[in-house]
């Protein structure tokens, strides 16, 4: 029989020595672990869209894909729809033309829990490549009226992938804002950011000549993001749509130059057949003008 004192001392000593060893190992492996994880995430992103750099917008969920000149060329987002055996981790690349550039579904080794040999086939090129170049509205399996051929005997997994991607596009479309050349609103001016990604002063020859702001409004289908230039006389120098997903032939008419140019002469009339979209834009431009007027000098 060992004395209780000896038991405690031995156990404690072993525990302390183990902790010291572990903290030492942790101290030199942890930077490497973080780096490895970052690199693997980045590799995953590069597989769905060709870009020079990725700027994280929402941690582990949404990135802006940027080219070597710093222009936004698209977004990458991750969604996790419920499949047959568990959540399906999907990475989706989406470009400024609002088309899918590529998708990547995690393999079984990376946590995909679909049935081996059946549901797991959603990771295969034959299935995955169908998504390239498609718009959100085309993404559903043919049985549901879409353009994606489901995998035989894995309808649930195929359907889950489609609905996950479709919902992801709906959610993150608002973040798809191209880098806009603000000189279209104020030629030869330089721009100083006042509110991050929202408001800029237009400066020419050291004089502030106006402001540029961006805003978001709810259209008929999805949000519409737009940019507005206002000169010191509180007159609009131009309005442009940055992104919208309005109905082709109707709501999409808000992108028409003739309509947008009317803002320079005051408040335009709503477009027939696109009343909701155009009225939403008109109201939002007016609201933005009221909100940012105080910045005018």
């Amino acid at each position: 029989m060992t004395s209780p004192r000896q038991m405690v001392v031995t156990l404690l000593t072993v525990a302390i020595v183990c902790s010291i060893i572990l903290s030492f190992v942790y101290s030199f492996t942890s930077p490497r672990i973080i780096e490895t994880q970052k690199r693997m995430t980045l590799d995953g992103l590069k597989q769905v869209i060709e870009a020079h750099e990725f700027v994280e917008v929402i941690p582990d969920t949404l990135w802006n894909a940027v080219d070597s000149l710093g222009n936004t060329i698209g977004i990458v987002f991750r969604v996790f729809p419920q499949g047959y055996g568990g959540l399906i981790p999907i990475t989706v690349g989406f470009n400024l033309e609002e088309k899918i550039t590529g998708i990547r579904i995690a393999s079984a080794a990376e946590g995909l829990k679909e049935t081996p040999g059946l549901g797991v086939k959603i990771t295969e090129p034959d299935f995955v490549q169908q998504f390239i170049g498609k718009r959100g509205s085309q993404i559903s399996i043919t049985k549901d009226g879409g353009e994606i051929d489901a995998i035989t005997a894995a309808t649930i997994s195929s359907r889950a992938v489609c609905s996950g991607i479709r919902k992801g596009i709906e959610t993150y479309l608002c973040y798809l804002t191209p880098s806009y050349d603000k000189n279209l609103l104020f030629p030869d001016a330089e721009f100083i950011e006042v509110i991050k990604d929202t408001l800029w002063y237009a400066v020419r020859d050291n004089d502030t000549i106006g402001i540029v702001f961006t805003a978001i409004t709810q259209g008929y289908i999805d949000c519409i993001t737009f940019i507005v230039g206002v000169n010191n006389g509180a007159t609009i120098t131009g309005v442009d749509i940055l992104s919208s997903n309005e109905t082709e032939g109707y709501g999409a008419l808000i992108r028409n130059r003739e309509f947008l140019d009317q803002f320079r002469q005051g408040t335009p009339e709503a477009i027939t057949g696109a009343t909701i979209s155009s009225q939403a834009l008109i109201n939002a431009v007016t609201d933005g003008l009221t909100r940012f007027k105080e910045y005018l000098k």
Partner: protein
Amino acid sequence: MNKWQIFTRGLVKENAVLILMIGLCPALATSGTVRDGFGMGLAATFVLLFSNIIISIMRKRIPHEVRIPIFILIISTFVTIIDYFMQAYQPDLYRALGVFVPLIVVNCMILGRAEAYASKNSVINSALDGLGVGLGFTLTLTVIGAIREMLGSGTLLGVAVFGEAFKQSPVIFMILPPGAFLVIGVLKALINKYVK
């Protein structure tokens, strides 16, 4: 028993999975492919070798009453070390083995060798025992992994072995849990018939 016998005993004659029937959970769960089985086997061998050595060195100083918590502490330290190393240098393997690396801690094969052998024998013999049992475990998992991967996925190390047609529609259930039981059962039967 000479040193060679101590080493080889764990390979087949006292094979942990097929003779002693211990360490079955990881043997079933991580033997879907050759690579996973081999990786799991090596990870367990590493832990077993070093835990046996350390426990054997300390065997005279470990109070009998608290030996189990001390064994577990030592084993879990090695498991955590290997867990960090895999995450840092072998991330693909780490993701494949996933939850089973931490579970090496409770693999009764490792605690079993500590209790039954390392705590009573010299350092050299304990190291040989750990290495032998570990390699036997690795060998078993690799063989089970090879059989299951060939039949269940139609591949070996990712390369198609029975032609592309078989790879398209393999015997799926072999890579599901029942396939593991079946393969282990058949191997056990063969060993009983030819080795004993």
